[in-house]
Every structure is written in C-alpha cells, then in structure tokens.
C-alpha cells in the first residue's frame, strides 16, 4: 500500500540547535519561513504542548483576489530541541477539518499528515531531518482511488 508514503528531507543548517528549534516552535519565527513561495502566514496559533492545537493560515494572491488556506493539527511529541512531532490537516478558519478533495487536493491525498522533525547538535550548526508522512486515509473516496492506483501499479510491476 502507498498509505505510508513519506517525504524525508535532511539539511545541515549553520545555526545553533536552540535557534533551529525556535524556527519550529515559535509562531513568529515559524511564520517567517513556512509559507510556500508567494504565500504569507498572517495567522499562526501554536500551543506547543502535548495535545496542544495548532492553526495556521496561509494567504496567497490568486487570480480572484487573495486566497486563504487553513491548516490545523495537534502537537504529539515535544522533546526540546531534538524531536518534534505534529499532525496537520486542511481546515476552515475555525479549525474544523476539511477533506483534502474539497480543497482541490488530488484524490488519494491523506486527510491527515504527520510531520516529524529531528534535530542533532553539531556544535554551532544543526542537522535537521524532516519526515512528512501520510496517516492512512479513512475517507472511502480516497481509499477507492488509492486502491485503484495501487492495483494499476501492481499490474504494471508484474
């Protein structure tokens, strides 16, 4: 199954580990780098405590004016300065989770994803490993798509 798909990115940053930790855990810093190209983060509410909620607003200029996208989730593991785990899902401005298809995401995209950040102190610089993984989708539509694609892929591999 492709449910457990993930993207893993490793970087070495020339900054002390405490500062890199703040990039992920302090709203002001997080907002400064997180928005994709052309997007800004006007709102970032981050309760960095186990079970604490997060609500991030991404704003970008579109053909029909400014477009807002909201993401919500929860902090799962917080191990200051070395490990952070949080979940993410698309949401409305009140933090109610929306199915990814409703937001124009490809069918089969998981409802909820998990971001794992691992930091390692290299003395002045920091090694960062970020893993973004899909939490198995429970929406029947998404499953149907995924199964169809998996079946096709299995056929092709044979």
């Amino acid at each position, binding site marked *: 199954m492709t449910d457990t798909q993930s*993207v893993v*990115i490793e970087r070495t*940053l020339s900054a002390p580990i405490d500062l890199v930790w703040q990039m992920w855990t302090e709203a002001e*810093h997080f907002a400064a780098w*997180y928005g994709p*190209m052309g997007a800004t983060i006007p709102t970032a509410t981050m309760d960095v405590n186990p079970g604490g909620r997060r609500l991030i607003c991404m704003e970008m200029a579109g053909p029909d004016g400014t477009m807002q996208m909201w993401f919500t989730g929860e902090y799962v593991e917080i191990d200051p300065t070395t490990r952070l785990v949080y979940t993410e899902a698309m949401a409305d401005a009140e933090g109610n989770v929306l199915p990814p298809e409703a937001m124009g995401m*490809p069918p089969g995209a998981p409802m909820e994803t998990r971001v794992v950040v691992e930091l390692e102190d290299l003395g002045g610089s920091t090694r960062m490993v*970020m893993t973004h993984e899909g939490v198995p989708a429970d929406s029947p539509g998404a499953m149907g798509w995924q199964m169809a694609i*998996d079946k096709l*892929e299995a056929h092709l591999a044979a």
Partner: protein
Amino acid sequence: MAAVAAMDEEQLDETFAALANSTRRAILARLAEGEANVNELAEPFDMSLPAISKHIKVLESAGLVVRGRRAQYRPCALDAAPLRAVSSWAEQYRPVWEDRFDRMGDYLRTLQEADHEADREVDQGSDREADQEEGTDR
C-alpha cells in the same frame, strides 16, 4: 524552478482530468494487462468506435497511453509515469519543503547577522558610555 513546478502542475491537472472518467479508467486497466488496439479496447463498452477513440486521445495527451506507429494496426500501450506522480502525494510535497527550508536557511542567516550587528552596537555603546562617565567625573 517556478516554470518546472508550473509544468508539473499542468501535467497533474491533465492526468487527473484523464482519470476522472470510468471508461478511461477501464481502458487503462485493460492496457495494464497488455497492448490492445482500438477495436479490442472498444469491445467491452456499449460505445461507438469514435467515442472510444476520443477517450484514447484524452489518455494519449495526458501521456498515459502511447500508440504504435504502424498505420493499420496502432496498438495502444500504457505509460505509467504520470500515474506514479499522481499516486505519490508525498513527492508533490518535496519541492514545497525544499523551498521552505531554503527560506529557513536565509532567515536564520539574517537573524544571526542582525544578532552580531546588535552585539557590535552594544559594545560600541558601552564604550561611549564609559567615555561619557569619564567626562562627568572631571
């Protein structure tokens, strides 16, 4: 970079549009078992040959189907490359994260430079204060 991303986006749009039809998905499923010509592909459907041809053209322009060159018998074959891009949502996130981390790197540099700048100012400031204190002593 942006142009490449836009191209990928277009490709994805086309792949999804092509997949958003049960006849076309059935055609792909049939082709997953091996090449077939239009007549063979049309067999299970209650549809005219031109209608089936139209569906195949959509799949072809989405890059999901490639056609042989022999004029009379032009078998259709499946090309799975666009499908892999679709099925891998995670890979779609990769360029987004790479882009973010580039910005995190820049931001960290700016922060640390600003910090050093501030340190220097504080040093100079305390020197000046010391001078002034000397001055008032006199």
